[in-house]
């Protein structure tokens, strides 16, 4: 087990370095100049720009810049913002908690509602209830989050008046419920469909017939025998989904005007603040890698036949 984790952690290193390099290249090798973006409409002469670039290290070759960045990164230094001079780590630390809260709410909602709907549908595959739920999930998947976001905003805030259209600067948990539902809807639909397929398949399995024949209570058959076997593909999906939720939060935050990582990335992209963008994406990559390791370890818990040497 320990050796397996160690091997997985080692395998993550090239992927981590590769992902940051990819984002770094997309940010710095493509056109777009942070110093000019800082100057805006003002006229700045070429010498000033050159001096500033040399100061920021932007005149060095791209590989040199990347090595510098990586070196600093391993010392916990994500660089400074060019415009505000604030350390990027501090800026991200300010914006992160609210996005994490949003993502946790959405995740809980995905797990609870998605799995329950999936079980309800899967227990009676091909029934009217199953088809209805499948149709509902298709509709949810086909609505991009900005569409769903505005619909929810229109009905709950403008028509019914039971919620505020935008959250306040320091949102309470109640205010985050509506954005979290919007953020969760896509994953929820996928989880419901996955659970449904898996449950429907396992309903026909021999061990289910045995469990019924033994006269076990229905609650135990479904709660223990069926769930434990049906959840493996769902757990796989949920693991990769945490990363997707953090990414999807960017759109949701825009709709509900939440000042989290999403709006941070937006502002940073507009100003070509490379360090901020790369910092945020690096963090998202770490979350994604950590989750996929967690998922692989969870397999062994769910299915004792899987052993890690």
């Amino acid at each position, binding site marked *: 087990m320990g050796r397996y984790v160690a091997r997985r952690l080692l395998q993550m290193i*090239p*992927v*981590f370095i*590769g*992902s940051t*390099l*990819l*984002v770094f290249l*997309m*940010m710095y090798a*493509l*056109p*777009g100049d942070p110093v000019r973006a800082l100057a805006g409409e003002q006229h700045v002469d070429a010498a000033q720009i050159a001096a500033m670039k040399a100061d920021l290290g932007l005149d060095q070759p791209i590989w040199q810049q990347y090595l510098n960045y990586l070196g600093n990164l391993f010392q916990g230094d994500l660089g400074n913002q060019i415009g505000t001079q604030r350390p990027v780590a501090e800026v991200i630390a300010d914006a992160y908690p609210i996005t994490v809260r949003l993502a946790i709410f959405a995740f809980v909602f995905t797990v609870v509602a998605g799995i329950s709907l999936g079980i309800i549908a899967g227990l009676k595959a091909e029934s009217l209830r199953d088809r209805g739920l499948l149709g509902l999930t*298709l*509709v949810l*998947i*086909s*609505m*991009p*989050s*900005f*569409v769903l976001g*505005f*619909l929810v*905003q*229109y009905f709950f805030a*403008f028509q019914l008046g039971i919620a505020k259209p935008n959250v306040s600067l320091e949102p309470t948990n109640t205010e985050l419920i509506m954005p979290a539902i919007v953020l969760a809807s896509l994953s929820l639909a996928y989880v419901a469909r996955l659970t449904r397929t898996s449950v429907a*398949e396992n309903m026909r399995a021999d061990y289910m017939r045995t469990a019924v024949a033994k006269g076990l209570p229905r609650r135990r058959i479904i709660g223990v025998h069926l769930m434990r076997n049906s959840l493996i593909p769902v757990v796989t999906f949920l693991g990769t989904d945490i*990363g*997707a939720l*953090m*990414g*999807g939060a*960017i*759109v949701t935050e*825009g709709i509900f005007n939440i000042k989290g990582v999403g709006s941070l*990335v*937006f502002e940073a*992209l*507009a100003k*070509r603040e490379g360090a901020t*963008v790369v910092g*945020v*994406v690096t963090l*998202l*990559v770490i979350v*994604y*890698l950590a989750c996929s390791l967690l998922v692989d370890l969870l397999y062994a818990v769910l299915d004792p036949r899987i052993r890690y040497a």
Partner: protein
Amino acid sequence: MPDTTALKGTDAPATAVDAPPATDAGPAPGKPRSLWSDAWHDLRRNPLFLISMALILLLAVMSIFPGLFTSASPRDANLAEHYLQHPNWGHFFAPDWLGYDGQGRSIYARVVYGARASITVGVVVTIAVTITGLVIGMLAGYFGGWIDTILSRITDVFFGVPFIVGAMVILTSFEQRSVWVVILSMAFLGWTSIARVARGSVITIKQADYVVAARALGASTTRILTRHILPNAIAPVIVVATIALGGYIAAEATLSFLGIGLAEPTVSWGIDVSAAKDQLRNAPYVLVIPSVMVSITVLSFLMFGDAVRNALDPKMR
């Protein structure tokens, strides 16, 4: 033997979509049908497939010949007369049918002309990622060893970068964002899931007896890959690709909505939704109509993909 079924197989769905094939009656009773003709046999009877196919055809015609649906121009703005004019639900297909937007442009015309951008992006990105993913996945799966290690790690790297964020980073670098820039940036990041599916599928198939037999008979690697492995490994890839198509259309709308996808003067549903968001309270239809179009389009491709998957998945039988 696998050669002939495979060749028939790759032809069947294509002809089937255009016109009812002459060989509709299928093979003689008793003779086993190939995976593809079996799937087609199922699909023809699936109402979901027929509905989604009809919607997709309608959208395709709309994106190629928008003039057939409306005589109004999507760019004619008449603020004085038509500012936020409410829909006239009785005037079917007339310019004022679905009302006018905040710039006095016919929403019906904009919705019709917006189909082209969405469908083009969705279809071209899907084709591009399918080809890239297939090539990378097949090479990794077939050759294994260090080629597999390198290609799989590269796939992991691209997979680790969140799709929308990555596309945003690329797209903000471009001042002029045409349909092709959007397509390229989405295809650059999107091929990973196809590559993973193709790799897995090839690994299972390369141990099949007919591949071993072909190699023993002295078939070249290219021949084995294109004639034996590709036709037999492609079914799961097509399933993933058709379902992903809807996702790419949604992603294009999302990016355009965020103001970093397509830009005016290109007519795009995402841009229209974004422009309408400030009038959500007093003129919700300006926002709802293009939103509904995006959802219907994504839904038709999802239903299509779902039907194809059910027909191709042997587990469902």
